[in-house]
């Protein structure tokens, strides 16, 4: 019953195509490309080292670094260093994170905690933890406690800040919705605020994991015999630059591994995004 409109192309005049002008501005990242670039840089670096273009003292070649790591591994010291550091990082991170999440939630949910907490965090967060080392030694001695405390302190502040901004960022309409169904406070915190703040919390974990890795070097300034940080410090003191970079490479492998774990957690827990 409906009238059909003409749809065929008119043949009476020459046509020309409309020029496509929407190209570019969509960088697609290629996984392989990154690895190739990395391999190229390492190869170039090695070539420059082997050709004697670079003083090995200032920039040891990749092979020298690999050799240093290998020697460390076969002597068994690598595992001692890595396990000592992992223990400090792990315990320090867990303690700092637990305290940070608790304080972050308190600040996000309570007016009293907010006014007190934000003032304290703003005042204490910017203090470089290294400046506190002598105090930490006085309070906690030179055992594992001050090392763990150094890491935990660094992790705590970043976590508290990212958690409370995460809690603040939970859409108010979801909380109102829950209230309109008479959902009790504890359930709102557990079922609405916690998952709502989780993206910000996990993003915070990314940062605090790096902070923990950064601080392990400071922490192991405190009389550590083993640990990647202690190893890096000693290599620096002795001007053994190949060992120094070996330690740095191990630390960055830690960093990559932690990044992968958090990436996996995000995929697991935040699939709904």
């Amino acid at each position, binding site marked *: 019953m409906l009238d059909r409109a003409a749809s065929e192309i008119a043949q009476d005049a020459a046509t020309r195509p409309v020029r496509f002008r929407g190209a570019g501005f969509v960088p697609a990242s290629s996984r392989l490309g990154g690895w190739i670039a990395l391999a190229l840089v390492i190869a170039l670096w090695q070539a420059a080292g082997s050709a004697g273009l670079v003083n090995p003292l200032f920039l040891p070649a990749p092979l020298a670094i690999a050799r240093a790591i290998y020697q460390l591994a076969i002597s068994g010291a690598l595992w001692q260093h890595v396990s000592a550091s992992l223990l400090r990082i792990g315990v320090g991170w867990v303690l700092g994170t637990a305290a940070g999440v608790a304080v972050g939630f308190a600040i996000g949910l309570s007016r009293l905690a907010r006014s007190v907490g934000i003032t304290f965090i703003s005042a204490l967060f910017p203090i470089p933890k290294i400046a506190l080392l002598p105090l930490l030694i006085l309070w906690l001695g030179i055992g594992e406690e001050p090392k763990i405390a150094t890491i935990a302190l660094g992790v705590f502040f970043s976590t508290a800040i990212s958690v409370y901004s995460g809690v603040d960022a939970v859409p108010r309409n979801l909380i109102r919705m829950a209230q309109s169904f008479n*959902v009790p406070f504890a359930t709102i915190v557990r079922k609405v605020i916690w998952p709502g703040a989780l993206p910000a919390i996990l993003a915070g974990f990314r940062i605090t994991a790096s902070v923990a890795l950064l601080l392990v070097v400071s922490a192991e300034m405190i009389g550590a015999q083993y640990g990647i940080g202690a190893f890096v410090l000693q290599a620096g003191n002795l001007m053994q630059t190949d060992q120094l970079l070996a330690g740095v490479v191990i630390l960055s492998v830690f960093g990559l591994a932690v990044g992968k774990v958090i990436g996996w957690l995000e995929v697991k827990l935040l699939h709904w995004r």
Partner: protein
Amino acid sequence: MDLIANHISHRFGDLAVLDDVSFTVSAGEVVAIVGPSGCGKSTLLSILGGLLQPTSGAPELRGTPPADSLNPLTFVFQDFALLPWASVEENVEFPLLHAQLSAAQRRALVEDALRRTGLTDFRNTYPKQLSGGMRQRVGISRALAVRPAILLMDEPLSALDSQTRELLMEDFVRLLADGGMGAVYVTHNLEEAARLADRIVVLSRRPGRIREVVAVSMTRAERGDIAAREKLLALQNQIWSLIRTEAIDAEREVQHA
């Protein structure tokens, strides 16, 4: 159960938003609230549902809600307010989690609510995978699950395109018919008001006062008919003439702000 607005006034700081608004929503009745932008329609609904404390006056209830009602006053939100990390089924189940129900009872309520909104096949989908219309169906399904006596609907269709709106309006007519529920339906869309309401409360520009309460004589079933269209248009025009000048003023004010 009746819902009564008892001389409700509200101010946000210096800004008077509502001025002495009183009306009653009787059991099973659908009352639409219309008015120019910024007349305090949504504020009024929040006050009626107990989400906002009025400056003076009070929302009141009279009589007892049906025995099976878990949440007599239940909102349907403009922005749906779905938990993005929860599936359709989990969203519908959310308001039942803290209720004193056996697992089987809870299952039955969720199943019934999903079925009535046609969401049974989408139970495992997540909100971001759904269109706007389907998301609001989840919002409605969640509201139905708690067996409300009165639905408080805050512009439930205004975030949707016109075709989806048409389809959902048909759903509303059906649900209101077989649920025996009352509703307060806040909208700026006069067609929705004319299609769904038993009575239409017309608010004035800020501060919102009641200008007129218009009764709609036809049954909701009759109004879906083509023959009724002319009558409904006349009704819309009548209300439009009440708010047109003020709507223009409100529009200007918004632009100046």
